[in-house]
């Protein structure tokens, strides 16, 4: 591990298609750019059609360790896809930073139970990725209900977007909704994420003062 900074262990959870994987990938790459050793772990076993699998080599080439299947290893068998990789189960025992891309919803969040040491790891933070353009998490009330179902949540990520139609305004709207959800739940908003071009327009902080993380999109090319 490098320097004086403490180990970072973050699990990204959230609603189906909330952008967990994209946020997790960008976080892992961001930490790697700071020279930190990072392991990115695919724990999506609920409905892994958009997965880290096709990106494994691309991401590894950028200097992070990726624990994920490769499509050829699980394809061709019919209904496969929900098989937990043995190595991934022990991911928290690895040195350095660990970023976990967890499957969707409540059942996805419970995937953390399968990780050795998840209950006791002092560094683990569970971050809930929210896109208010997803109807299940579209309002403050919906988000509060959702947080309750999810069990452990240590922080919120505003990943509000509409795919290619995303605007600064909808991201800021997400920031406002999440700030209110944070106030009422007592769970802080850790960051707002936005694609690089829009992040530049917003600046280092969103309208409610949350730090803005610029992200690059990898997932559109990561189908099955």
């Amino acid at each position, binding site marked *: 591990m490098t320097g004086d900074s403490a180990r970072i262990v973050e699990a990204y959870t959230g609603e*189906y*298609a909330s952008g967990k994987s994209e946020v997790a990938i960008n976080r892992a790459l961001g930490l790697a750019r700071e020279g930190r050793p990072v392991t990115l772990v695919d724990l999506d076993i609920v*409905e892994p*059609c*958009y997965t880290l699998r096709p990106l494994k080599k691309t991401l590894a080439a950028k200097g992070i360790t990726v624990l994920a299947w490769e499509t050829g290893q699980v*394809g*061709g068998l*019919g*209904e*496969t*896809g929900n098989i937990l990789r043995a190595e991934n189960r022990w991911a928290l025992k690895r040195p350095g930073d660990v970023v976990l891309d967890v499957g969707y919803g409540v059942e996805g969040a419970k995937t953390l139970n399968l990780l050795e040491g998840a209950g006791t790891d002092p560094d683990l933070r569970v971050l809930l990725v929210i*896109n208010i*353009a*997803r*109807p*299940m998490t*579209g309002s403050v009330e919906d988000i509060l209900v959702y947080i309750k179902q999810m069990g452990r949540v240590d922080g919120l990520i505003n990943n509000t*977007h*509409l*795919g*290619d*139609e995303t605007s600064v305004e909808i991201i800021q709207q997400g920031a406002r909704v999440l700030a209110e959800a944070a106030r009422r739940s007592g769970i802080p908003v850790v960051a707002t994420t936005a694609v690089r071009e829009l992040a530049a327009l917003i600046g280092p902080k969103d309208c409610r003062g949350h730090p803005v993380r610029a992200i690059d999109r990898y997932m559109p090319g990561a*189908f*099955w």
Partner: protein
Amino acid sequence: MPKDKPIEGEKRVFMTGNEVVAWAALAADADIMFGYPITPQNEIMHYWTRLAPKFGRDFLQTEDELSAGFTTLGGVLAGRKAFTATAGPGNTLMQEPMSMAEAMRLPMVAIITQRGGPSTGTVIYSQQEVTMTTLGGNGEGMRIVYSTATHQELFDYTIKAFNAAWKYRFPTFVLGDGYQSKMRESLTIYDPAERGIAIVPPEPYFGKPGVPGVDRPPSQLRNTYNMEEELYEVVEHYLEDYAKVAPEVAEYHAHYVDDADLVVVAHGVVARAALMAVKELREDGYKVGYFRPVTLRPLPEKELREVAGRTKKFLVAESANGQLARLLKEGAYGCTTEMLPLFRPGMGITPEEVIAEAKKILG
């Protein structure tokens, strides 16, 4: 009992295709879903089971797809808007209830998320369930099949499917695929009433008020007949009805076809790639057109024949070995258009592949 509106007004949202179907079924006032697990349709059930109790709707997970299909028919007979969703081998099993729906004019609605075949194949994607969905079962294909290409269409046509089924009383299908099921994109969800879309109300076949045989004739449905003539008369009558409504049901999209030397024909998600390819080819000066049947049953035959009548060549692009092409050949019978294949059974097709093939043909 008044139902809470699942969607107030309009909302721009970001969703997966399966989720879109669940919301659209709510918006269409669907009452009950019957289903059995099969990839890639599972999240239609997952979202329906999460949402349904909030809006007073029901769900039953049956023991298999035969049962899911027949319980759906039972729901329809009781006058509820019942639907199901399946794929691949499940669609195969469901052909039995679907043929009963044809025989008795029962407005069942099924969402088909095509996967690779034959047999269990892959869970991923294909357009290999076209023949089965349009013409499957023992029967005459008296069905309505909408082949969608975008999430907006999944929403619009799921609502439309319930309306068409209950208006025309033919089994109605939304033919999607694994890509559409899992892809995420933005769309506008809406309360149909606010767009002026009237929801066709269901009507019970069984359990109407009054004593059967006393206050009203008993409702007795049959699907077996003693004599050839009896059956013939019934089927002829149904076929007449089907032919009558076909022109108003049939839908298509056509672009740049008037002066085209080559028309790319595709349906469903492949039509997206085809349209992108055609636009790019036009920009490069190629006289290429685009034709997409939205309904595969009934086929937009008149428009197809018009295009086939003035175009020398069709390039038929589909993720199957000519299942769309067979429908087109029947629909355009007698036209001299040459039909060239871009068949990729169980594989996606990119705009680049369509462009390359078109350039090869045009020289």
